[in-house]
């Protein structure tokens, strides 16, 4: 059976998370996954009495989304992890490692985000015929 996931937008995210906290849900973690094209899905997981609640936020790769670490402090670590690995930036992080939780400062790409690599290839593919025409 597929789990039930509630879709949220960047505008309603913090409100929904605050409501989950008010209702007594424990913060479990975030999951980030590519959802095709240039977007990623960020899933927010909460638990209450062994029942999971999931929120899904779909955003463009490399976009900035509000951090929930002001609501659930425990989220700061996983939000930093997603910043490192997927390149999504979190605005308002209570502890911001500036993409150095796992990565060295000089690493510019997001290692878990294949979209970026595909885009680079695509750009090369597009420019090559142009170069031939010229």
């Amino acid at each position, binding site marked *: *059976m*597929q*789990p039930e*996931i509630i879709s949220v937008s960047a505008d309603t995210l913090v409100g929904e998370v605050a409501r989950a906290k008010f209702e007594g849900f*424990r*913060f*479990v*973690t975030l*999951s*980030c*996954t*590519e959802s095709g094209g240039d977007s990623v899905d960020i*899933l927010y*997981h909460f638990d209450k009495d*062994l029942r*999971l609640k*999931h929120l899904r936020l779909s955003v463009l790769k490399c976009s900035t989304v509000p951090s929930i670490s002001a609501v*659930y*402090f*425990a989220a*700061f*670590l*996983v939000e930093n992890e997603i910043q490192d690995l997927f390149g999504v930036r979190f605005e308002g992080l209570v*502890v911001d490692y500036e993409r*150095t*939780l*796992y*990565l060295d400062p000089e690493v510019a790409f997001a*290692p*878990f985000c*294949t979209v970026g690599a595909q885009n680079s290839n695509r750009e090369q593919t597009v420019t090559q015929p142009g170069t031939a025409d010229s």
Partner: protein
Amino acid sequence: MLKTIIPFGPQHPVLPEPLHLKLTVEDEIITGVFPALGFVHRGLEQLVHIRDFQQMIQVVERVCGICSMIHATCYCQGIEALMEIDPPPRAKFLRTLWCEVHRIQSHLLWLGLFADCFGFESLFMQFWKIREKVLDINEATTGNRVIVSVNVIGGVRRDLSTEQMQWTCSELSWVQNEIACLKATLLSDYTVKKRTVGKGVLSKDKAFELGAVGPTARASGIAQDMRLLGYSALDQLDFEPVVETDGDCYARSKVRFQEVLQSIDLIRQAVSRMPAGEIRTKFKGRPAGEMFVRVEQPRGELFYYIKANGTKHLERLRIRTPTFANIPALLGMLPGMWLSDVPVVVLSIDPCISCTER
């Protein structure tokens, strides 16, 4: 008072794995903590693009050797849920048995390391002597001492004879007797209590707020144990989570000590109720869809997010290990502690950086 920043780890005598904490101290009292990770991050989650969904069992077993069986069980349960495979009842009981054996050896490993961190070398050796017997059980029943590799999609690859199960129970009786001899030392000894009682206190509200899991949460009065979900054969066994309320290092060691005995009891129950039959369900096809799975590792709640698209490679595998969840709780325990108590408090969450840096 002048503030000083002292690095704790990644190389430190009490840390078997590289965790780094920047400690802000005033007159040897901790006033701030800043964690740093990433020294051994392996990117194992990305191997889903190279290994197929069946080969990934071997990968997830290597996220952490100490709880390899439980990682594999969690992963297999997720894939089975996606593919609507129901493993045979005997396979579920065998998974439960080996998972609890893993919990025993992990807790014994921690009890030894914990004793070692405050200098009680002989207690460390006693706990590890007992642990060897548990590893012998792993070896005799699975062929391996640590990474047992018995899980497959749809069940398990090894069966146990009645004689093997009886032998396991008799060996565990020896373990139980030996542990009973150490109970007074661990829980009543003056020096142990001096180093653990009232150290690293985490209140129930704070534990919930910071998302603590496993023995760390249970020692603070939160009766949260993913085994209550009833996965594998746990819905057919009787147990209650071990809960303490003091929330200090002593309470956390007490929880783990009692959980060793609880796991022995669960194994006996599993053996006595073991159904006959097949150990593996054959299947066809490939997984598709999204699934969230949770099981109870020795250190707490283990969370897997699996996303599959019908090909042999998964699209995404996300692993949230209990130590990752307990690091914010650790940051809540340390302020106000003496610098000399930091190793004891850090060890009290049973940090597994191998898990964290999956």
